[in-house]
């Protein structure tokens, strides 16, 4: 990096609308958050027990301009201060994605500010750069959220290799489904986390699924079924089950698998730095288990604070900065790509 380049401040306005959060942020040089506005639609979707794409899309339309406006105002900036506009264009729900992508493109066309399309998962990984100025690739990152469970090698800024992923449900999806089954409701992640603190994680031993063919891949649908079966059997026998114990035991099964696969990858690849990201990365049991496992191996462990684990635009601004630095620019035909692969454009 040239000294001159280092000193120039690059400010990115970022927009994220891939699921049920409408978010905008301004980020300086990929690491300093000047504003981070998130409008969460969670209450709207709680009624339906999960995100309804059409309802989410309609809400994004209402909120996209207010969040952008607030992000600029909180940063005390106008468009003339902005060097690039970063927007999530996948993966995610197509309807919600299209709102952010269309608005970002229009703003880019109207202002002449260059546009950079950003991968949502790349955003989650990059959330780690924000609070850890010393963190630089290469490192390994576990991305766990409602839609994704990826074990990723971050080779360089914007260069990724996915070494493990879920074969069925994402980790967060399993949390939601189990939470519903044990009467906790939506969203499952935070609710299971909370109630598990009062439960015994060793009360029930649920299976830790191995996936044939790949040591780093995950499978959570079997675990989810095991929990449902357990509940059924209890009911048939007329036995009572304890919500907190089921939650804690299920959570432990998820955490054990995530930690084991991550540590195997660290051993195999010889990483000295390990990060977690995504909504499930704010799970307290996962954090402490990872912290402990990394400490044992004398590996540096990074995790974003909860506000940067959830879907947000600051992380898109961070990822967008490194793409912008590499010269990536998107044109007016940028489309939403619901199943966009990490590392692809």
């Amino acid at each position: 990096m040239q000294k001159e380049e280092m000193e120039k401040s690059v400010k990115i306005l970022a927009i994220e609308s891939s699921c049920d959060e409408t978010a905008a942020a301004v980020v300086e040089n990929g690491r300093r958050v000047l504003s981070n506005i998130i409008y969460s639609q969670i209450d709207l979707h709680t009624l339906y027990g999960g995100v309804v794409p059409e309802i989410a899309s309609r809400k994004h339309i209402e909120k996209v301009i207010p969040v952008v406006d607030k992000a600029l105002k909180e940063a005390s900036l106008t468009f003339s201060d902005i060097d690039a506009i970063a927007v999530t264009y996948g993966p995610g729900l197509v309807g919600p994605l299209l709102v952010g992508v269309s608005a970002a493109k229009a703003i880019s066309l109207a202002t002449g500010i260059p546009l950079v399309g950003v991968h949502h998962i790349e955003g989650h990984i990059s959330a780690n750069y924000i609070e850890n100025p010393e963190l630089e690739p290469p490192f390994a990152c576990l991305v766990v959220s409602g839609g994704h469970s990826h074990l990723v090698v971050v080779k360089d800024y914007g260069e990724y290799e996915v070494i493990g992923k879920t074969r069925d449900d994402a980790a967060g999806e399993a949390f939601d489904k189990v939470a519903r089954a044990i009467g906790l409701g939506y969203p499952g992640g935070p609710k299971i986390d909370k109630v598990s603190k009062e439960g015994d994680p060793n009360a029930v031993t649920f299976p830790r699924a191995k996936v044939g063919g790949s040591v780093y891949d995950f499978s959570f649908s079997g675990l989810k079924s095991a929990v449902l079966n357990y509940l059924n059997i209890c009911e048939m026998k007329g036995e009572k089950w304890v919500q907190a114990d089921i939650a804690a035991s299920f959570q432990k099964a998820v955490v054990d698998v995530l930690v084991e696969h991550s540590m195997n990858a660290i051993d195999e690849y010889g990483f000295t730095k390990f990060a977690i990201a995504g909504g499930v990365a704010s799970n307290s049991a996962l954090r402490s288990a990872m912290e402990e496992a990394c400490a044992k191996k004398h590996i540096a462990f990074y995790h974003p604070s909860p506000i940067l684990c959830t879907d947000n635009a600051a992380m898109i601004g961070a990822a967008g900065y490194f793409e912008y630095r590499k010269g990536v620019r998107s044109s007016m035909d940028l489309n939403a790509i619901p199943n966009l692969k990490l590392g692809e454009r």
Partner: protein
Amino acid sequence: MKLLALDTSGMVASVAVWEDDLIRGEYSMNDKKMHSQTILPMVEQLRDQIGLEMESVDAIAIAKGPGSFTGLRIGSATVKGLAYALNKPIVSVPTLHALAHQLCGSEGLICPILDARRNQTYTGIYRYTDGERGAFPEQVILRDQCAVSIGEIAQDLNARGELVTFLGDGVPVFAVQLRDLMKVPYRLAPAHLNRQRAAAVAALAAEYCRKNMQAHDGRLVPEEGVIESAFDHAPEYLRLSQAERERKEHADQENAPA
């Protein structure tokens, strides 16, 4: 006055620039490509072709709906982004009003019909009356845009007992039913008039602006649902989402007297 107008409510992606009762440029495409890939490159090309300064536009007009939910949102998010960045108002034009406006001045009744799926159509009934001497004919809304069955709109038209001209993407879809259902004479609009066009959105938006300005000493001022800000504009879907509809039906069933 200068207007940039967009219509992404149906299969057609269309953009036009209107300036003082002249269409400076219009670009329409009826293709399977997604609007998200076409509409902004079209705006960009039209801008470059006619040397349009985006800042010189007085307002941005949009066919606000009804139509394809996704199409409406691509259009809405696009005009919101443009209007916000340029600090200009949005002129919201009902899709069916704009479609009817393509047949401005024609004899009898005008009935645009869009395929709304689930055996329904988005439609409305319009006629044009003579405006002031030497001015444009005026649009009269006899039945405001709505989502109804083809049978219901045909019945309404038959009761009015006048010649009808149909247009819109619902025409080929409901052609057979129309032949059976229509008791009054009717005809169809030809190719250059039978689908959404941003030029018609722009021309009708210009009328809305003119009326608004006449009432406010020549200034364009906010008017609910017509002259909106980038913050306030939202598509007019005319329908709930499927999840909301099913939830409502379920609640209605439970509340129904036994």
